[in-house]
């Protein structure tokens, strides 16, 4: 392992990162913190994210800058709250985690402030993870998992997943066109890099065939964990960390990374927020590879700063979406296409479900 200087203020983080030493990463953020400490309110996804973010980002940021971070749990889709907050100028949050689709919706409505730095400032960040109003901290991936105790013939692709004769087993799909349409097209042989624009007609033809064989249509991430863990179904698509949670808890299951679609979660600033300066400083802090590496200890999400893998144990890297081995099998989901078509396709998907 490396043997760089250990700053006492960063000790907690370092222990978390598995004893791997950090550089003087805090230094750039220390400048300009001579003024009085500010308290910012950060809306994170709650649940296990709270403590994981606290260890990886909040506490180290507090120690490095003297500012305070109060974290609150936001809704799964915070866009409505975000919109109401900006329009009524009642800033209960200074920073909020957003998905790419939430970012696009909010950006389109002019509800986001710029984050104040660019890819050039953090060159090792995945280029998709940064834009003028957003910086991604973690990558999640839509993949599928199967129960190794029930499914004897191991499926290896979406084509296999959709082939109910050759790969028997009880299946679940997500009750949402997002991801499901892509999965149908991948199953039908559309190459991963030629998915978009999505061929809706073709996708529904494929879905028609599997419709009678889908036992469960899940609606929430926690439900997907439960479905896999309880054995309610034998194979299902889901977000990798949710499926990994079941596996980490002892469920005999395996994740198939092949043809996965990943997306990014990260920070955005509500337009006109009063503490935007400190909030920006905080976002910048979260691009730090060591902090991101520490985050992956707790939750199986991939870091966006690929330098983080220098300090992530090889065993852990295997279950993270952005490890080189997994990343090369996957592509990023195209949020632009969905921003433009989501409403229409959702309507059609709902009609199809009821038919």
């Amino acid at each position: 392992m490396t043997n760089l200087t250990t700053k006492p203020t960063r000790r907690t983080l370092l222990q978390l990162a598995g004893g791997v030493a950090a550089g003087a990463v805090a230094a750039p953020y220390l400048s300009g913190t001579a003024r009085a400490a500010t308290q910012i309110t950060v809306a994170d996804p709650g649940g296990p994210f709270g403590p994981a973010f606290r260890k990886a980002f909040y506490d180290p940021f507090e120690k490095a800058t003297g500012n305070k971070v109060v974290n609150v749990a936001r809704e799964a889709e915070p866009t409505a709250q975000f919109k109401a907050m900006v329009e009524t100028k009642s800033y209960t949050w200074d920073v909020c985690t957003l998905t790419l689709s939430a970012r696009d919706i909010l950006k389109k409505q002019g509800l986001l402030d710029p984050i104040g730095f660019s890819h050039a400032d953090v060159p090792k960040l995945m280029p998709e993870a940064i834009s003028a109003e957003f910086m991604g901290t973690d990558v999640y991936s839509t993949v599928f998992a199967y129960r190794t105790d029930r499914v004897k013939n191991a499926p290896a692709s979406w084509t296999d997943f959709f082939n109910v004769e050759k790969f028997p087993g009880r299946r679940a799909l997500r009750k949402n066109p997002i991801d499901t349409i892509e999965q149908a097209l991948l199953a039908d042989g559309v190459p991963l890099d030629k998915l978009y624009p999505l061929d809706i007609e073709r996708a529904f033809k494929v879905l028609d065939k599997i419709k009678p064989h889908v036992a469960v249509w899940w609606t929430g991430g926690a439900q997907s964990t439960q479905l896999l863990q309880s054995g309610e179904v034998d194979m299902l698509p889901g977000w990798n960390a949710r499926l990994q949670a079941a596996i980490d808890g002892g469920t005999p299951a395996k994740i198939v990374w092949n043809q996965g679609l990943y997306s990014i979660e990260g920070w955005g600033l509500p337009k006109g927020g009063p503490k935007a300066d400190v909030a920006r400083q905080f976002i910048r802090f979260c691009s730090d590879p060591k902090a991101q590496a520490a985050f992956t200890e707790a939750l199986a999400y991939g870091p966006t700063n690929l330098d983080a893998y220098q300090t992530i144990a090889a065993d852990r890297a295997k279950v993270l979406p952005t490890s080189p081995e997994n990343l090369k099998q996957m592509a990023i989901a195209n949020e632009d296409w969905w921003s433009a078509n989501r409403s229409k396709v959702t309507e059609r998907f709902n009609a199809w479900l009821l038919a």
Partner: protein
Amino acid sequence: MSAVAARAAPARRSGFRFGPLWLAVPGLLFLAVFFAWPVAQLLGLSVVDPENGGLSTESYRRIAATDVYLRVLGITFRIAGWTALWSLLIGYPLAYWLARLPDMFRGRMLLFVMVPFWTSYLVKTFAWMIVLGRSGIINSLATGSGLIDQPLPLLHNMFGVMVGMVHAMVPLAVMTMLPVMTGIDRRLVQAAQTLGAAPARAFWLVYFKLSLPGVAAAGLLVFISSLGFFIVPAFLGGRQETMLAQLIITQVQELLNWSFAGALAAMMLAAALVSCWIYDRLFGISTIAGGSAQAGAGRIRDLGLAILGVVGDIAGRAAAVTQRLLGKRICGWLLPGFCWLVIGFLVLPTLLVIPLAFTSSQFLEFPPPGYGIGWFRTYFESPLWIQATIRSFMVAFATALAATAIGGFAALALAHSRTRWSGLIFAFFLAPMIVPRIVIAVGLFYLFARIGLVATDLGLIIGHTVLAIPFTLVTIAAVLKTYDQRLDQAAATLGANRVRTLTGVTIPLVKGGLVAAFLFAFITSFDELTIAIFISGGVKTTLPKQMWDDMILQLNPTLAAVSVVVFVVVTVMLLLAERFRSSSSS
């Protein structure tokens, strides 16, 4: 119906300068500011073009362009209708049995009936998944004992939804019917039998008929509350079981198309109002004041009596046959047996939660692989959970007080009034139940943000009171319906003023209804999630909000541990209240 007829006799009283409807004014003002105004603002968005802010009927044209929304509306009504029917069928015998029990014993039995209330519906839903799933308890037992080879499809279909929803709604139905039933004078049934009516005929034509206001009120409450469900169909339903509230939430939260959400909400509201109106025409229950009982209602009443007579005859013959087949002794056990089965059904998920809370596993799995108190430690050591628990209790208590007072006065006003306005006012008071909570929540957030009530306990109390008022009003109104107002008049004749009549005569006599209303309001607030999500701003977290945050990402047995703690605390509270009540009344 006969209660209406009985009350039609006393002449309309004069001498109140402002008329009795004034008692409803505080409630009307409260709902106008904190419900009608914010919701109207949101509904107004349905005719606003999201792009340029001009007027547009685009959202409504979109609904008309496809049949998917009408179909979902149909499904929503079908699920709500079946839920109401099953809740009444299961709840009526239970309420009947409870009403016949001695006071003390009934109080204790009621605790069992209310058990599902004290278990968060989030937790209950997951408990049902564990019971009904493919490798769930029922299927494991059935396949293990060789009864069946293949697991039964009990989950992710209409059956699963019905189990979840009826389970959630039976307590509501029983609690609404019970005060009416305990108010029925059983000697009337005896009198009918003395006059030669067969027992079955006497039951149907006298007892059942007298209990109808309670039955109709319960049916309406269950039906309308069911319209807004979204968690149960999402988790226990299958491909077909999509309810309108789910679509509205998607539009508000994910697609951010509030114009379209407003249009969907308007459609749901209109459909719910129409069904209320039909209900009102058929049963006349929402016209508490009886103002719109017209010639048609008379004919319907005759028809109803004829039907009840036929039902009574059929039931009489069926009872005779059953008694001959099973013998008198077994027949005597049929009703208690059925009721204990229902109580078993009601407490099952909560009983299940207890071992889950003591599990050593990371998951809500049954049977637990090992036992420990680790999850209780997690709960008690977390200031977040403890704060949320305390806040939930306090907010629920304040909400219950406010909603019972407002709803009680409104019910009193409506019971005393005979104007044609009373029907409308009643509908207005019920409206918070019909409008999807997400619509109220977003509307309130907008309002509160401007007056600084976001992330305050007061904001939560106001929001929850809006939701609880319909329950308190209907519960108290149902009791007042069987309440003989001549008692008030007698008090007035004897020189009591209005306040003294209220505190000395009316309130003690309708105490059962007031307690039920208070409990309804308490639990409405205690188990409320949607308003809490928006108003708490993530800062003032309530218990359901905290549970939701936890379960949306990672289901773990902390939820079960919390449920057990809450259950124990509430049971102790209820037992103390029951003891206090019975000692003060004796």
